[in-house]
């Protein structure tokens, strides 16, 4: 039952992300835009390129969607609404999202197209940059909660949210989450105007629809994770818990999407340089500070 509810909420969330994305790029809200675009995609012929690696070509988009949905299963939405409260929840979240990389490699390699392949391998470089900045801030979050249980992580923020307790970790995680979801300015694997869509370039019709849906689900999952790890989950005054989590998730999603509009696309080498020379030392500092804080104010 919870699983069905989560899938429905993910679908609604993905739809809203599509509306917000449309609003960010075109400047006006049109609630029916994703529906029309979806119907148009499903109506189009789904072309299979010449000499594809058929297994990868078909698996890539589906795996992207599956890994986003799996990651969402350990995110608690309200005190009772979580699909599985795994003892290793915060770790499982990472494990599921690593398969975004595998999905993009498959989608890049599968169609036998130059732009797609460059996009796929680019994302591997991107992972080398952002992966540590996802894992290390989560380590600090788990240190404060003294648990990998996501429910416990939310409970640990009942007094003071992690965004105030460990602001450095929040900034790093937020940026890394945008890179994981290959949102602009980190849209190196798709890179419209440069790689002609990259990993998306050779996909059409229903396959492209699944790919886009997977990406939207990924964005909403990452926004929900940001809320769980840093913004106190469902905690908040006056309003009921479900309202708070919905408001927070939509706000985080909007900021993630808006940020990309005003920043030019980053270079792969700059991304790697900044992540490793600036991001990782900051993440280590964050872990150290949280350790000291946890010892001083237990």
């Amino acid at each position, binding site marked *: 039952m919870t699983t069905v509810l989560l899938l429905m909420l993910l679908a609604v969330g993905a739809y809203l992300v599509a509306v917000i994305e449309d609003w960010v790029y075109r400047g006006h809200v049109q609630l029916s835009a994703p529906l029309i675009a979806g119907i148009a995609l499903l109506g189009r012929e789904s072309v299979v390129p010449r*000499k594809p*690696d058929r*297994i*990868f070509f078909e698996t890539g988009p589906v795996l992207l969607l599956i890994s986003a949905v799996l990651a969402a299963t350990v995110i608690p939405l309200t005190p009772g609404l979580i699909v599985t409260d*795994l*003892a*290793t929840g915060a*770790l*499982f979240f*990472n*494990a599921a999202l*690593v*398969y975004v*990389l*595998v999905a993009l*490699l*498959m989608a890049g*390699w599968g169609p*036998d197209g130059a732009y797609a392949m460059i996009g796929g*391998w680019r994302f*591997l470089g991107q*992972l*080398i940059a952002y*992966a540590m900045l996802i894992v290390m801030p989560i380590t600090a979050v788990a240190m404060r909660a003294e*648990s*990998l*249980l996501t429910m416990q992580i939310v409970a640990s923020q009942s007094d003071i949210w992690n965004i105030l307790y460990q602001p450095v970790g929040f900034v790093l995680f937020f940026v890394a989450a945008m890179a994981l979801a290959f949102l602009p300015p980190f849209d190196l694997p798709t890179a419209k105007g440069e790689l002609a869509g990259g990993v998306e370039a050779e996909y059409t019709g229903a396959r492209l629809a699944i790919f886009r849906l997977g990406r939207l689900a990924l964005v909403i999952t990452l926004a929900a994770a940001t809320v769980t790890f840093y913004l106190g989950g469902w905690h908040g005054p006056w309003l009921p818990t479900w309202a708070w989590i919905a408001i927070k998730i939509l706000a985080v999603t909007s900021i993630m999407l808006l940020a990309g509009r005003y920043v030019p696309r980053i270079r792969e*080498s700059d991304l790697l*340089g900044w992540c490793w020379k600036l991001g990782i030392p900051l993440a280590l500092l964050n872990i150290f500070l949280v350790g000291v804080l946890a010892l001083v104010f237990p």
Partner: protein
Amino acid sequence: MTAQALFIGFFGLAAVWFGIVVFRTHSMVRSALALLFSQTALGAMFLSMQAEFLGVLQIMMMATEMSIMAIFMVMFMMDPGGLGKMDMTHQRRLSLGTGVVAFATAVTIALFVDWGPITSSAPDATQQTVDLGLELLGRSMLIFETAGITILTAMIAATAVAIQPAAGGSRHGR
């Protein structure tokens, strides 16, 4: 218990099957990803055996490692797409012999070692994570730290070897 045994068997067979696919395919990327799914199946076996932390860790680590291996295989092999039907096996007799000997050794060890009394159920996953954490920061700390530092040193050394000496003091990597 029966369901558990069935799942372990299923994922075990999946691991072996993907292991075979590694050598049966001609494509480097397929080969690398087949190895990934073989390792993922191993992770799923750990999960079936109620070793949650180990299983999740295995599933997470292998995805990155095998993807990185894939790009190296594509870079260094002359026929990455497998369109030339390159054979993935070499030194057949030696590898077959080694494989048979290793398999026989593993089976012998599994059958003839006294494993002690078999526990019917593992402690719950939260307790396992706590125990593992205490173990890693206690008795096993020296071993893990030594291994970690060794790997880090090797990585730095490999990177240092790979960087070309800067010509005329210009910045590289741009």
